[in-house]
C-alpha cells in the first residue's frame, strides 16, 4: 500500500483544513517543515467541507484549498462536499 | 525518419567539420576527474600524433601533479572506448582520427590525488 499526500502552507488560513484532514484520516502522518505542513496517508485521503465548517463555524468553499495548497499526490476526485486523493480511481 | 512530423523534417547537422577551424578531437584522461569531463579541441588533421604528447596534452593536463610522472611507454590508448595503438610519427588523420572522434589515455599506476581518481 502506498501513501498519498497533501502539502499545505503553514498559515492561519490552512489550520482548519489541516485539522479537518487529521480528524477524518486517522492514519495521517504529519510532517512540519518551515512554512509547510505535509500529511501522508496510506492509500486514501479525504477532505470534507462539513468538517472544516464544523471547526471554523463558517461556510467554506472547498475550492479555497487552492489558496494554501502546495503539492499533492494521488488521483483526485472532487465535488462540492469532499476532495479525495487516492491511488485507486 | 524516426521523428513523427506533419511535413518533411530535415535539417543540416549543426556540427559538421566545415564549420570549425579544424576537426574536433575529444580527449579524456582516465582516472583523473580533476578534468571533470573529456575536453574538446580543434586540432588540424596533419598534426603528428607525437604533438599530442609533446604539446597538446601537457598544455591541457600539465597542472596535475600526476602528469609529470607519466611513463609514456606504458600509456594505454583508446579510441571510442576500444584499445588503440597510435603511431606517434603519423598524423592524426593517418592514425584514423577524424572529426569528433574521442580518444582516452590511461596511465597505469597513477590514480589521481589521494587515490580518489581526481
Amino acid at each position, binding site marked *: 500500500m502506498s501513501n498519498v499526500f497533501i502539502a499545505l502552507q503553514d498559515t492561519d488560513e490552512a489550520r482548519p483544513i489541516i485539522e479537518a484532514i487529521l480528524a477524518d484520516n486517522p492514519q495521517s502522518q504529519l510532517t512540519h517543515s518551515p512554512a509547510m505542513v505535509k500529511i501522508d496517508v496510506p492509500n486514501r485521503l479525504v477532505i470534507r467541507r462539513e468538517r472544516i465548517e464544523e471547526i471554523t463555524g463558517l461556510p467554506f468553499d472547498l*475550492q479555497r484549498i487552492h489558496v494554501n495548497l502546495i*503539492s499533492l499526490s494521488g488521483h483526485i476526485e472532487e465535488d462540492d462536499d469532499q476532495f479525495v486523493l487516492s*491511488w485507486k480511481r | 525518419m524516426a521523428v513523427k512530423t506533419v511535413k518533411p523534417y530535415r535539417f543540416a547537422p549543426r556540427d559538421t567539420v566545415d564549420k570549425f577551424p579544424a576537426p574536433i578531437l575529444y580527449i579524456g584522461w582516465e582516472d583523473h576527474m*580533476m578534468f*571533470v569531463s*573529456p575536453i574538446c579541441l580543434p586540432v588540424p588533421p596533419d598534426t603528428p600524433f607525437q604533438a599530442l604528447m609533446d604539446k597538446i596534452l601537457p598544455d591541457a593536463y600539465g597542472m596535475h601533479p600526476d602528469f609529470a610522472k607519466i611513463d609514456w611507454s606504458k600509456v594505454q590508448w583508446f579510441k571510442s572506448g576500444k584499445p588503440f595503438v597510435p603511431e606517434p610519427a603519423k598524423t592524426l588523420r593517418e592514425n584514423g582520427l577524424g572529426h*569528433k572522434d574521442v580518444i582516452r589515455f590511461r596511465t597505469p599506476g597513477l590514480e589521481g590525488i*589521494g587515490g*580518489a581518481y581526481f
Partner: protein
Amino acid sequence: MDTRVEKKKLSLRERYHLMTRGLGWEPTYQPTEKVFPFTAYEGIKIHDWDKWEDPFRLTMDAYWKYQGEKEKKLYAVIDAFAQNNGFLSLTDARYLNAIKIFIQGVTPLEYYAHRGFAFAGRHFRGEGLRVACQMQSLDELRHTQTELHSISVYNKFFNGFHNPLHWFDRVWYLSVPKSFFEDANSSGPFEFLTAISFSFEYVLTNLLFVPFMSGAAYNGDLSTVTFGFSAQSDESRHMTLGIECIKFMLEQDPDNVPIVQRWIDKWFWRGYRVLTLVGMMMDYMLPKRVMSWREAWEIYGEQNGGALFQDLGRYGIREPAGFRDACDGKDHISHQAWLTFYTYDPVAAFHTWVPSDAELDWLSAKYPESFDRYYRPRLLYLREQQAAGTPVANKNLPLLCNVCQIPMFFTEPGDPRRICYRESVYEGERYHFCSDHCKSIFDHEPEKYVQSWLPVHQIYQGNCFKPGTDPTAPGFDPIKAVLDYYEINNGRDNLWYDNSEDRRNFEAWTAEARGN
C-alpha cells in the same frame, strides 16, 4: 400559501461542464483536421473526448478569484521584504547563488511553458483539456512575472541577477534547461503534455520546487518562499492535468501504450538530467541545508515515483527505463556537478566555493557510500590550491552530451571511477552522450538532435563573439571575448565566492545593520 421552491444550486461538475464543454462545436466551415492539424500525427488515438475527466474543476470566475487572492498576498510580502532590506536576514550571501541559478535556469522555463501550453490550449480537440491548458498558460506567465519580481530585489544589491534572459539564450550551462524545453515545445501536443505536465510537473516537480522553496525558508529568503508556495498551488493543478492526460491516453486505446511509454522514458530522463543542478544546489549551496539530494530522491523519486508507477502498472506502463540509473546516481551527481562548476567558475554567472569543515562532515554523514571515498579528497585539494592562490580551473572546454548538453562528467552506473562514454554515428557524423538513456533518445529521433546548439561547439565555430570581434588581433583572449558576448561582468558575476564583491558587500552591510 405559497410553496417554497428551493433553487437548486448547480454542482461543481455541472457548473464546470456548462462553462467549458459548451465552448466546443464541430466546425462546418472547414474540415476538423484543418482546424486541428496536430491531433493525429503523433499516432495517439482518441476515440471519445467525452471520457476526459477534468482534474480540477476551476471555472474562470473561481480562477480569477483565487489567483487574485494569491497575487495580493504575494505582492504584499514582496513589498515588505524589499522595504525592509529583507536580504540582510539571509543566513549568508552564498545562498544567493542558488537563487541566481533559479532566475537564470528556471524562470525562463516558466516563459517557455507559457508558450507551450498556449500551443496545447489551441490544438487539442477536447474543450476541457483546452481550457485546462489555457489556464496553465496564464499560470506559467504569472510564474515568470512573479519570479522576476520576487528576485528583482536581489538585483539591486548583488551580482549575477542582471541579465537572465540574455544568458539563457547563450551561456553554456543554460543550454541544458533551454534545450530541454525547446525539445518539448517542438513536440506535438500529446508528447508535450507527457513531457511537461506528466514527467516534469507530476513525477519530478517535488524535486525542483520543494528543495528550492524549503531552501529559501531555511535561509531567510522570505521573498522566494512566498513566491514558491504561491506558485506551487498552481503546480497542483498542473500536476493533476499531467496524470489525467496520461490516464486518458492509456485508456483510450491500447496502441497508445508503447508510444506513451517511450515518451515517459525520454522525458523522465531528460527531466532528471536537468535536476542535476538542483541536487548540487541542495548539497552545496544552502548554508542552512534542508536535506540531501540523496534524501530528496529517496522520498520524492523512489517512494513517490515508485507508488505512481506501481499504480500505472495496470495500464501496462512500467517504471521509466532510466529509473535504476537515476537511483544509482543519487550518491554522485551533486558532487560531480559542484566540482564541475567550481572548476569552470571563471565562465559561470554565479559563485562557487569549497565547503567548510562542518559542511564536509554533513556531506560525509549524508553520503556514507561515496563522499569520503571520492569527493572529500577532491574538495580538500581544491581548498588547498585556493589557499595557495592557484585555484583549480579547467582551462579547456568540455565535451557536452549531444542530448542533455551537460558536460560529460557523469560516471558509469555502478562505477564512479569511470566517466560514462556512449556514442552513435548517424549519416556519417559522430555524436556523443553521457549515458545509455541520452543515446537512446538520440537514436530514436536523430533528426532532432543533429540540430543541438552545443555552446562549446558554437564557441569554436566563432558564433559566440560580439560583432566586430577580431580573433586574429594580437593579445586576443577568447575567454574574455566569450564572457563579453555572454554579457557576464568578468570579475563580478563570475569566479569564486571568497574574493567576490557579493561577499564583501554582504559582510559590510550586515555589520552596518547590526552596529552603530
